[in-house]
């Protein structure tokens, strides 16, 4: 049984360009002109440019959030052993309280705050007379009650405006209490989406925490960057790397640990999962400590294997390579066997993917494992390099909204800089596509597929009606819109309270869930029989 849809699927040859033009026509002229640049009909025969990381037109119903969400919500919040105090009215802290499903576990020292929500809960007089005093008091109270190892402070919208100097507060309180206190100026209006917050978070982490503790690490060690441990993804990745003989020194920032970040610079290499949110950290760590980074994708069976092989190529150790191949062989076989029955029911189905700054790319690999095709994909807060690849970086115009996000001035650390490879080798690895490079999502998308940046509600609804996908992967705000159209939706931010989907076992979970979503009988009841079809007389009588 498949989803109930009102009309028949269009013929495969219909003109997708027409569809795009019809969408655009609905907008006011200026808006239409802007939006048109965010939509690309893939033509692999030529390089294509897409507009990204620019303001959403006011009034457009967007998937995007804000800078605070990117900083506290995405990057810093998942660090389990720090107290994250939100400085502002209660809402921002409240909404980012346990809602992203970054899973974590306490370490030996017991400090664990993921279940907690800390805020200065600013009141009107704090807005009028300034909130620094309250912030200081809040930090002292937090220290008094919990004796944490470190505290982060996150500014919300009004804080910048009223002129609270949270960085000075952080510095002074850090001195007073003798613990690290890091402030983030991640007011919601900064930048154009969560992306600004990622950058700010990267900067703060890098400047104040990473690389302060020079404890030697044994064996092959990596940091997992841009992995948020949604639904336990990081643990599945750890399991696989562990089997290969590679240790994860730290994860940025799913199940992240302040203590572990202080020695993250001792790892051999950085693995970058979500390129958008963490590439700053990868670059800065390479510059300062000499750690190269490898773009990986642990979403999908083949993708995971490919990522592992990049590691083998990087480490150049025959025993390790052999072990990696053994792991790949075993895990792939098991995963593919487990996926087979689902794949049988999913083959040929189509998906829309709108999520994140890397996932819309990553999950295409996984859908391919299931025999499914992604026919429309787009990011919520990506930049052009996430679509077009890092080669485009020098050509990206920095507009007014992005200019305000500080770029740190990073130099090689005089004591801690240790090149992991000689420069020639590194160059070669980069040319091979192993390190320090990312080609973006668009290259992996075939002719006639659609790429839509910062898709609006209207566009989503229109495209669904036109293209009749079997499933749409998006976030919580879209989920029930999509489902109300009789089409199943998979949330790929929070995994619908399930997971992991990373690695081999995650792929099996995902296959099972996509099959479930598409093939559950519930959808067939969307129309009441008296609406759907005339009654068949006599069929009712049991005698």
């Amino acid at each position, binding site marked *: 049984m498949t989803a109930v849809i009102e009309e028949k699927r269009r013929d495969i040859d219909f003109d997708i360009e027409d569809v795009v033009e019809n969408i655009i026509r609905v*907008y006011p002229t200026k808006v239409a002109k802007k939006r048109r640049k965010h939509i690309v009909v893939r033509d692999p025969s030529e390089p294509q440019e897409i507009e990204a990381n620019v303001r959403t037109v006011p009034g457009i119903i*967007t998937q995007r959030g804000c800078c605070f969400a990117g900083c506290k919500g995405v990057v810093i919040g998942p660090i389990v052993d720090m107290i994250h105090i939100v400085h502002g009215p*209660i809402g921002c802290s409240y909404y980012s309280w346990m*809602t992203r499903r970054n899973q974590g576990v306490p370490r030996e020292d017991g400090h664990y705050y993921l279940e907690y929500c800390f805020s200065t809960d600013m009141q*009107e007089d704090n807005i009028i007379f300034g909130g620094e005093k309250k912030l200081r008091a809040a930090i002292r109270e937090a220290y008094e009650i919990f004796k944490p190892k470190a505290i982060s402070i996150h500014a919300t*919208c009004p804080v910048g405006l009223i002129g609270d100097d949270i960085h000075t507060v952080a510095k002074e309180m850090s001195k007073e209490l003798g613990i690290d206190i890091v402030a983030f100026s991640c*007011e919601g209006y900064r930048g154009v989406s969560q992306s600004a917050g990622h950058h700010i978070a990267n900067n703060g982490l890098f400047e104040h925490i990473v690389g302060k503790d020079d404890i030697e690490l044994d064996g092959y060690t990596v940091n997992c960057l841009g992995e948020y441990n949604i639904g336990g993804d990081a643990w599945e990745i750890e399991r696989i790397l562990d089997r290969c003989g590679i240790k994860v020194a730290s994860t940025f920032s799913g199940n992240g640990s302040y203590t572990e970040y202080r020695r993250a610079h001792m790892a051999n290499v950085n693995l970058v999962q979500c390129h958008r949110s963490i590439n700053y950290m990868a670059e800065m760590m390479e510059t300062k400590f000499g750690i190269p980074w490898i773009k990986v994708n642990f979403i999908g069976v083949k993708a995971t294997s490919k990522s592992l092989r990049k590691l083998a190529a990087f480490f150049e150790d025959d025993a390790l390579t052999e072990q990696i191949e053994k792991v790949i062989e075993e895990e792939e076989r098991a995963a593919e066997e487990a996926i087979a029955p689902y794949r049988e029911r999913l083959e040929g189905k189509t998906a829309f993917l709108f999520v994140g700054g890397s996932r819309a790319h990553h999950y295409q690999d996984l859908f391919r494992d299931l025999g499914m095709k992604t026919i429309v994909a787009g990011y919520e807060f990506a930049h052009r390099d996430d679509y077009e690849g890092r080669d485009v970086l020098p050509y990206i115009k920095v507009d007014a909204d992005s200019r305000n996000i500080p770029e740190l001035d990073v130099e090689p650390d005089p004591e801690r800089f240790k090149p992991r490879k000689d420069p020639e080798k590194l160059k070669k690895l980069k040319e091979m596509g192993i390190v320090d490079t990312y080609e973006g999502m668009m290259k992996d998308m075939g002719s006639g597929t659609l790429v839509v940046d910062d898709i609006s509600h*209207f566009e989503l609804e229109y495209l669904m009606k036109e293209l009749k996908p079997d499933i749409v992967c998006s976030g919580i705000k879209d989920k029930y819109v999509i489902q109300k159209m009789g089409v199943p939706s998979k949330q790929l931010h929070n995994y619908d309270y399930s997971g992991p989907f990373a690695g081999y076992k995650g792929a099996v979970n995902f296959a099972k869930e996509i099959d479930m979503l598409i093939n559950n009988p519930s959808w067939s009841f969307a129309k009441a029989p008296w609406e759907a079809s005339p009654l068949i007389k006599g069929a009712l009588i049991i005698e």
Partner: protein
Amino acid sequence: MLNMTPKEIFERKALRINPAKTCQPIGALYASLGIHNCLPHSHGSQGCCAYHRSHLTRHYKEPIMASTSSFTEGSSVFGGGANLRQALKTIFQVYDPEIVAVHTTCLSETIGDDLPSLIKKAREDGIIPEGKFVIHTNTPSYVGSHVTGFSNMTAAMVKYFAKKNGASKDTINVVPGYVEPSDMREIKRLVGQMGIKYILFPDTSDVLDSPQRARFSMYPKGGVKIEDLKDTGSSKITLSLGKFASEGAATLLDQMCEVPYKVLDLPIGIAATDRFIEALIEVTGKEPPESITDERGRVVDIMTDMLQYFHGKKVAVFGDPDQVISMTEFLVHLGMKPVHIVTGTPGKYFERRIKEIVKGVVDNPNVKAFGDLFLLHQWIKNEPVDLLIGNTYGKYIARAEDIPFVRFGFPILDRIGHSYFPTVGYRGAMRLLEKMLDALLDRQDRDAPDSKFELVM
């Protein structure tokens, strides 16, 4: 679970930990959804709107449509006027609502955007099409709570629309408070069954409990109509349910159109529902049909039949003040002992009222308005309870302290039912009784040794 929470209570003045409230705009957004053909609009940064939509979606598992002025750094310097104008243009062209209900955020409030002028200008400039409406309310996040926001947007409906058209009609206004679509539906049923004409606003039934029919509708069929909002000024009286969420609209109607009003507790539990019905009788002279008296009697029947499971049990309750006030009273009427009572919303009235309700039943109740769940948890560590009642966040405390838990109030993110089955009215009381009994009896079953495992309860 919540292992960092110490038993010793350290008095805090600045640090909020694990709040029992959120900010005004989400309440305003929710209220706006109770107007027919309305697109709520968040005047501030994108994140506010995203957070509110996400949060309400998690609670309702329904589409929550709203737009935003998408402030960037520039807006925070130059004000959000241009953003709002652009937003209204886009909205009316692309999403075609009948009305846009704008609420502010801490950002636009701190900037000081003058919404009435902006809207007036937009109207003058033809940005608001003929026959379309834009209303607004100020919902600074640093004042009150989500309940305040709800109250403010409800009052804005009056402010923008209520008109006195001469002779007072038979109709009464009912302001249902910050309750579920199921509750609004039930309040309408009760009033309707008494043969009383009414205008209920806001009204999220048939908006946030919409059917799956393989057909998305941006503006579902529910919601109070603008015509009806206009008529509120000519109603005989306003019954406002819940002082915190509904008094504002009632007093405004009185000021603007001289519609008298009564503020009642939310009709949760037996006595509060009785008072609601009595008020209906009093203001209309109509008698409740026997079916209502029977429903009531069924509630009492459960109460008397099952009293042994309630009597003397200690309870901790938290949530929004109107809900908690009525719930606390209901618990007392069941013979229970509400020992810890918290709301996150500020308001001295709450503490005074709760203390009045539990007087003679609990000697030294822990009561706090503008409190939080961290404090509640510490209270519970110091004086354990047999039952915890509150929103989904309570489950962490329930797990940490191994307490039976009943989900009640806003938000409920991890179970369904709240939007379909009311907790108001006598039917709601039956549901609450069943929920509480299930929680208490499941626990008894769990903890009983085999020899004490009861077939009949």
